[in-house]
């Protein structure tokens, strides 16, 4: 350290050295602290994205191979998307993603907002109700999946119980039905996340200036108008945060599908993440798995980037 200080031409008076050194250290400290995490992110997120993209153009099977062999993996996915009849696993995965993503995000937002508005009516026992709704979020997807698997299983759960109580005509076998199994994933997912969305909205509602509400009430706005015209538009930033959190949870909900349905009858509950894992690690077709991962990334970017851009641009204006 001392050699560095003495050779530095700017430092002339001896007594100023400690102050200057400390000043420089203070300047540098944030960078030093950030450097490892920056490097780690750079390598382990962006580096591996590039690596995955590269692998998708090779003929990698069990282990990565580095000789480029063209876009064969993409050609296969393309064929599986548009020409396969009956539907391929890939086609099933992406249609399931559309169904699940749309319903999961939509219902969570709607239900979360609805619960938040109800809880915001200054009711008694809010302190108890709030954690009750929020608690499912503390469970992992695996626990949620297994619990709902038992609950929805016609031989063990709801159906069996109601039959015991005498309602023998009751029939609910979605979890064993190839056409409906994806909706059971929506049910379990919504159950887990809507309480969390509620908490976000509740925080947003509490942050709204009471004066605006009072003014609107004096102007004669009904409760419905109040929420529709004033409160919900003011909650827009919360919508953005909730949407981003939910969207990424929808995309990564691999474990929920596995725990709840083990892939569903004939693989009918697969999401693209299941497809990616299955092909990369179980079927030893790393190139196809990588290609599917890249397609997922591009699809997400195509949705999230314009949305973020429009939201953030509006804020800057």
């Amino acid at each position, binding site marked *: 350290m001392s050699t*560095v200080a003495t050779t530095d031409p700017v430092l002339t008076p001896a007594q100023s050295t400690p102050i200057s050194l400390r000043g*420089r250290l203070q*300047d*540098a400290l944030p*960078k*030093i602290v950030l*450097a*490892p995490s920056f*490097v780690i992110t750079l390598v382990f997120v962006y580096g591996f994205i590039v690596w995955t993209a590269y692998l998708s153009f090779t003929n990698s*099977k*069990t*282990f990565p191979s580095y000789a480029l062999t063209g876009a064969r993996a993409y050609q*296969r996915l393309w064929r599986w998307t548009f020409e396969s009849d*009956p*539907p391929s*696993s890939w086609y099933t995965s992406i249609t399931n993603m559309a169904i699940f993503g749309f319903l999961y995000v939509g219902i969570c937002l709607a239900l979360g907002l609805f619960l938040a508005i109800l809880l915001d009516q200054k009711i008694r026992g809010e302190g108890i109700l709030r954690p009750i709704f929020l608690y499912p979020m503390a469970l992992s997807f695996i626990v949620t999946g297994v619990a709902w698997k038992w609950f929805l*299983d*016609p*031989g063990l759960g709801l159906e069996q119980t109601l039959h015991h109580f005498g309602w023998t005509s009751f029939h609910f*076998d979605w*979890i*064993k039905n*190839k056409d409906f199994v994806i909706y059971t994933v929506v049910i379990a997912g919504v159950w887990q996340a809507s309480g969390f969305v509620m908490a976000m909205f509740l925080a947003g509602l509490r942050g709204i200036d009471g004066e605006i509400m009072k003014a609107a009430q004096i102007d004669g706005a009904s409760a419905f108008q109040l929420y529709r015209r004033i409160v919900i538009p003011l909650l827009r930033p919360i919508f953005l945060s909730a949407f981003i959190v939910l969207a990424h949870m929808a995309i990564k909900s691999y474990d929920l599908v596995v725990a709840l*349905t*083990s*892939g*569903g*009858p*004939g*693989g*009918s509950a697969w999401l693209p993440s299941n497809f990616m894992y*299955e092909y990369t*690690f*179980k*079927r*030893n*077709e790393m190139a196809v798995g990588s290609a599917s991962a890249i397609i997922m990334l591009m699809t997400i970017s195509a949705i999230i980037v314009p949305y973020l851009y429009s939201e953030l641009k509006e804020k800057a204006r």
Partner: protein
Amino acid sequence: MNRFLTTTAMIALALAGAHVSARAADVKEVQMLHWWTSGGEAAALNVLKQDLSKEGFAWKDVPVAGGGGDAAMTALKAMVAAGTYPTASQMLGYTVLDYAQAGVMGDLTETAKKEGWDKSVPAALQKFSVYDGKWVAAPVNVHSVNWLWINKAVMDKIGGTQPKSFDELIALLDKAKAAGVIPLALGGQNWQEATMFDSIVLSTGGPEFYKKAFNDLDEESLKSDTMKKSFDNLATIIKYVDPNFSGRDWNLATAMVIKGDALVQVMGDWAKGEFVAAKKKPDTDFLCYRFPGTEGSVVYNSDMFGMFNVPDDRKAAQVALATATLSKSFQSAFNVVKGSVPARTDVPDTDFDACGKKGIADLKAANEGGTLFGSLAQGYGAPPAIANAYKDVVSKFVHGQIKTSDEAVKQLVQAIDDAR
């Protein structure tokens, strides 16, 4: 100076990373990656642990979070990619060859010569344990897949006898249905459905056809009318499954037979381990028959201990493990518990029960008669990509995504072609 500090931090980070991967392994220790955790399996492995500790080698399980073969294989892949090889790993079929091709497997040829493995291990197994003339894996057992497991009490109640043909099997299932018992216990997971289909194809097309279609992947056979007939037979037999079968684990399906809720399960002989664990005796509590029409042939899979290319100082432990694994005493003790039969044909069958004795005799006959075939559903007929494509098609057929046998055959040819 900023740059100086940043560089230092990065070098320190890199050094820390390098240090972790350079952790030395204990030379008197057998590091073993496996997914045998159920009671019987763990008890069976204890025999091996004791054999090794007598020779002074400690046993260390390589922990795999999540359990199950898939998680273990992913963990193994990561270890191999990082260059920290375990001494050995439980592996199946084509996986061994994959790793051997990647050049990470050790060479046990010397030990094999000394112990005479070439003569005692069936040639069909050597296809997977010998690569390029070198022994790279030690087979632990032979499971066969074409079995029927029947609850004897239910069989007596409905007055059934051993079915000799596919039609007789269907007649038997009809009897069970009429008596109000679930005729066929099946778990609707793709590997279980495909395992049953293995037997159906062998029964429908005969040994020659099975080999050509499911081991040689001959396109003409895959497209043939016999294959269509096999799918039709699958459609017939699926009608005898209870509506709640989808996603059920295989051992729960076995439990249905053990408890007498169901008459029969078509499953590999690991199902016998469940019967034995439930204190049931062959011929008094349960019956084991070959799938009708497959007598004389054996569709097999085998658990192998793949041996990795460990440094010389760890080699002694590996040789000890391999020798102990293929010793007659271990082969007998382990397989009595596991339900399978020994991987060498010269192990006496004295300790085995009736089903085990039959299994050993069948294996010997099939080995000599050339009717020992790798199970496609279990990863011994073709590499994983193709085996999984096959399981997909069978499962989609069972669950109704593929509706006719014509379509199924078309899909099967296409899927296998894609995966090649």
